[in-house]
């Protein structure tokens, strides 16, 4: 079988407008980042609230948060994505449904579904990290804050959360990286993110190896730079005197 190697393929014209293949990768990477960052904001906000709920006294709030985590952790991501993209729009009130199906472009509706899906999916994982972080703190922290006359809200706001978030930066980093990797499922509902663009380049140019090699490289570099960024953040916010904090 003859395979026509051509590493210069990325700078050749796609035949669509005046674009070269590299433009497609760049636009795909843009979508990947846009999906991951928007999803991460939802995941971090919702995950923190749920994580706090799991550690609160009482029965009802922890139970709700636990149920959420079990539900979102035990259904495959792809099933969740199909539910958000195919099923949920049909459940919306008619004006909203029409807006989702006809008022916005297919790319936008796919984008919204993926962002909500990844946000809620990752929130369950963030919740577990936040809970672990809070529970890892010595009991004395909570008791001391209450003894000082702090309300529960103040205890979390000023004492528990600032410490817990610092502890959990490493596991949160891996969730942050995961959301970038997981965003590739968007290609299965037609959003032209990095993986979908790669497949399209492979199809158009027939240079499968080159296209997938570049995509792999982009994901690899993205992953490494995010990891570097997060360890920089971790160093900046480290508490002096704690494990690993003394330099």
């Amino acid at each position, binding site marked *: *079988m003859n*395979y026509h190697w051509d590493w210069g393929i990325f700078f050749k014209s796609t035949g669509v407008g005046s674009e070269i293949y590299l433009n497609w990768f760049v636009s795909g990477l843009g979508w990947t980042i846009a999906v991951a960052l928007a999803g991460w904001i939802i995941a971090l906000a919702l995950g923190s609230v749920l994580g706090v709920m799991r550690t609160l006294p009482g029965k009802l709030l922890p139970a709700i948060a636990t149920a959420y985590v*079990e*539900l979102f*952790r*035990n*259904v*495959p*991501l*792809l*099933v*969740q994505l*199909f*539910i958000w993209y*195919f*099923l949920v729009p*049909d*459940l919306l009130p008619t004006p909203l449904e029409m807006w989702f199906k006809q008022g916005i472009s297919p790319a936008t509706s796919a984008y919204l579904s993926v962002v909500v899906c990844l946000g809620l999916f990752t929130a369950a994982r963030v919740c577990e990290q936040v809970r672990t972080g809070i529970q890892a703190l010595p009991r004395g922290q909570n008791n001391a804050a209450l003894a000082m006359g702090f309300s529960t809200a103040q205890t979390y706001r000023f004492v528990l959360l600032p410490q817990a978030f610092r502890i959990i930066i490493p596991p949160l980093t891996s969730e942050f*990286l995961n959301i970038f*990797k*997981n*965003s*590739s*499922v968007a*290609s*299965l509902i037609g959003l032209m993110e990095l*993986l979908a663009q*790669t*497949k399209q380049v*492979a199809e158009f140019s027939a240079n*499968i*190896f080159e296209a*997938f090699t570049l*995509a*792999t490289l982009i*994901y*690899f570099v993205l*992953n*490494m730079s995010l990891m570097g960024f997060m360890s920089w953040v971790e160093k900046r916010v480290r508490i002096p005197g704690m494990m690993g904090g003394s330099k």
Partner: protein
Amino acid sequence: MALDFSQIIPALPGLADGMALTLKLLVMAVGGGVVLGTLLALARLSDNALLSRLAKWYVNYFRSIPLLLVISWFYLVVPMVLSWITGDLTPVGAFTSCLVAFVMFEAAYFSEIVRAGIQSISRGQINAAYALGMTYSQAMRLVILPQAFRKMMPLLLQQSIILFQDTSLVYAVGLMDFLNTARSKGDVVGLPHEFLLFAGAVYFVISFGASQCVKRLQKRLAV
């Protein structure tokens, strides 16, 4: 929107076939992944610097790219490479290329678990094995690995549950696993929502049930 689940019952035999494929893929991928992962962990921990570095690169590489990319890669590339080796076009099914992708990808994750398991065994064990005159491979096979696997069993099972959910990604290459069967059956009878919800419920029950069992096992194994 009214849901009508009555059509699921006649579709059950077809759905069972899909689940059989999912489970077959899962069992083979876990088996292959654990074997390759153990070899990688041993390479990573070996005194040979080159071997250790290669294993490290392998793990870092597979952990930084999406599984879906690996599946697509192998779907396109495995048949091509095979045809270069054998010289003629051997048709490789989607199943084989998915299986190879899962084994290679999951091995990176399993190897980290196995490595932590081996490192948690006290040094005295291997020294004692050497003192008894065992070779490296005997010491690993008969002394270290059995203890390590016992310790890491909950983590390996947890990872397998994640893999069970991830097998649904074979949708990307059109393999008729449980999810894909449910989707196509649902489309045929015009009830895609019901079949999708049913599929989600089945995944949930299996994953949730399995992880509860793992939790119980973890308590029983705890020292």
